[in-house]
């Protein structure tokens, strides 16, 4: 079924002007004696963790909340899931919410797998009936059919995670709220999680993902907000927000260092691979240039691999002068088959595409990163180039087109 156009009344989660201040005594009192002795002269430190946060999540949307550790995103998560109450503002829910903050909350080692499904399910806010209905699915998903009557302490850690994940995924309500659980488990399991997310996304479930993993936001989120120091600093398409976040991260990493020419150095990564060179060329002329005038152009990235790497991904973004990302491709999107690289390998990726860019200046950011989006080398605005064309537009892009007019005589 095609997604219907959403309107404002379709918001399933509405966060309105939420602020949160933690009042912590400077010296935490733990005993009654201390309280009595210090009565009337308690000093509090005020921590304003969230400031005036407002956003809406539409039904069926995959929504991202992105922010670094300490940005306040976990506090926001706890306010949305009603664990903390906001100091100001309110949260409105248009459905039942299943929080997925930690796997297997309340799991008890001494109880059987079956008992734990019911316990954990109830803790996640499901009725006994709902759990009974979904029990078979949960067991099937966890692939633990033979172990359900076993005590949990006989489970391996992998089995535990599988069971916990199965409950959270199968036994959820209208809204699923997920907190960086992707960080746990082995690569195999993470892959399984990602597959589930893709499925959920396709099935039109409402999901709120709280994370610092820009790769996940980029891949899954229709929309996202970026939280910095307790404030929303950006709201937009998942990809755009992820990019902004990448940039902030990297500015912080490089400490805003400037090159000799005074430019901010905008490059980071763990050096497992290096982007050597980036260039563009008119098609079919194919010589390196700074000026694109043809109907088609190529964009090339020269990469060398400094260690053995499993399926690294190479990609680029074309950003216009206002900072908008106009194009973005990577080897995965372009269906380049998975290729493992050896240390010392080198490759040049060349993309050919119609020139849809209107006249103006553009920047190219180039990257090599791992499958999860963790960059080996992320080079922001590696090069710039200029587009000049006769047929121009005031719109964002100008696509290849034809026009047919049929004159109607009176």
């Amino acid at each position, binding site marked *: 079924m095609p997604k219907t156009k959403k309107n404002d009344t379709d918001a399933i989660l509405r966060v309105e002007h939420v602020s949160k201040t933690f009042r912590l005594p400077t010296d935490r009192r733990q*005993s009654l004696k201390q309280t009595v002795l210090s009565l009337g002269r308690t000093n509090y430190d005020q921590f304003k963790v969230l400031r005036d946060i407002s956003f809406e999540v539409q039904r069926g949307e995959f929504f991202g909340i992105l922010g670094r550790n300490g940005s306040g995103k976990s506090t926001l998560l706890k306010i949305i899931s009603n*664990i903390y109450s906001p100091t100001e503002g309110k949260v409105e829910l248009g459905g039942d919410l299943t929080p997925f903050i930690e796997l297997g*909350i*309340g799991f008890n080692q001494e109880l059987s797998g079956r*008992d734990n499904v019911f316990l954990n399910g*109830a*803790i996640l806010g*499901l009725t*006994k*009936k709902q759990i009974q209905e979904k029990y078979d699915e949960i067991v099937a998903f966890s692939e633990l059919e033979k172990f359900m009557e076993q005590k949990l302490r006989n489970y391996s850690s992998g089995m535990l995670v599988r069971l916990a994940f199965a409950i959270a995924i199968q036994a959820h309500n209208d809204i699923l709220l997920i907190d960086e659980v992707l960080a746990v488990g082995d690569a195999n399991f993470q892959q399984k999680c990602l597959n589930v997310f893709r499925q959920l996304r396709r099935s039109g479930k409402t999901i709120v993902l709280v994370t610092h993993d820009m790769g996940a936001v980029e891949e899954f989120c229709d929309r996202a907000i970026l939280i910095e120091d307790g404030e929303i600093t950006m709201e937009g398409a998942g990809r755009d927000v992820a990019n902004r976040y990448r940039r902030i991260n990297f500015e912080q990493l490089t400490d805003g260092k400037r090159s000799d020419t005074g430019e901010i150095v905008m490059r980071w990564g763990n050096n497992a691979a290096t982007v050597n060179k980036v260039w563009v060329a008119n098609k079919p002329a194919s010589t390196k240039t700074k000026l694109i005038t043809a109907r088609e152009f190529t964009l090339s990235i020269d990469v060398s691999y400094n260690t053995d790497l499993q399926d690294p991904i190479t990609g680029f973004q074309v950003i216009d002068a206002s900072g908008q990302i106009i194009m973005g491709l990577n080897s995965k999107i372009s269906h380049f088959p998975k290729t493992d690289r050896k240390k010392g390998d080198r490759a040049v990726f060349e993309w050919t595409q119609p020139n849809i860019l209107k006249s103006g200046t553009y920047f190219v950011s180039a990257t090599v990163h791992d499958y999860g989006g963790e960059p080996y080398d992320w080079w922001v605005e590696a090069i710039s180039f200029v587009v000049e064309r006769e047929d121009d537009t005031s719109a964002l892009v100008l696509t290849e087109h034809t026009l047919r007019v049929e004159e109607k005589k009176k």
Partner: protein
Amino acid sequence: MKNYLNPKQRSLLNALVVADFKIRYQGSVLGYLWSLVRPLSLFAVLYVMFTMVFKVGDQIPHYGVYLLLGVMLWNFFTEATNNGLSSLVDRGDMIRKVYTPKYAIVLAAVFSASVNLVINLLVVFIFALINGVQFDLGRLLLAPIPILQMVIFALGISFLLSSLYVKFRDVKYIWELLLQIGFYASAVLYPVSLVPEAFRFILFMNPVTQILQDARFAIVYDGTHTAISTMGSYAFIPYLIVLLLTALSIWYFRKSNKLIAEEL
């Protein structure tokens, strides 16, 4: 009441009580019987002491049943309030990570003890039959009242203590002390008739004394002292104390409820 005991919360309550039970007797051969052993052994010691050494039991018909009922009710009171007191802190991990109706956790703790109480009372009943207690149907029908009052009282105290315990860990030690004193201040083991008349009024100010005596009146024999027979028109005081304390506890619990997750 829409926000209380909806199907979800009932499921949670149920799951917590069931899990609590399963965990408690996990891996023990006697299983549930262990929860009978504790009050029964206390009873045995007291019975021997008070019938053979001090011989106070002779003054009351069916002193064994009288004592056993008191011990079982007192045992419930300590178990329920101790469970209740630490319930929020024990489940702190859960409260911090998922929205949990806090009252359900306290309720579950007291309910677990209540299930024990029901089974223990059955033991008292069987013991009473063996002992030849002549039940009076009219009085027996009154028995649920003090028992229910006991559960409400324990629940009220648990609400107060559990939320205080989140902030002040001293509460646990204070409560232990109070229970120790309470055991002797609650007529669990001695007949009220042994208490000098001047002190009986004070003794009955304690709701636990009133509850125990009401239960004994209903189940064991009608000659026992009750709040009504002792305090006359002031007999409403212990009932009122239960009511006020429970109201205060619920008020305080609701007040601190919002911040519990942050303070844990």
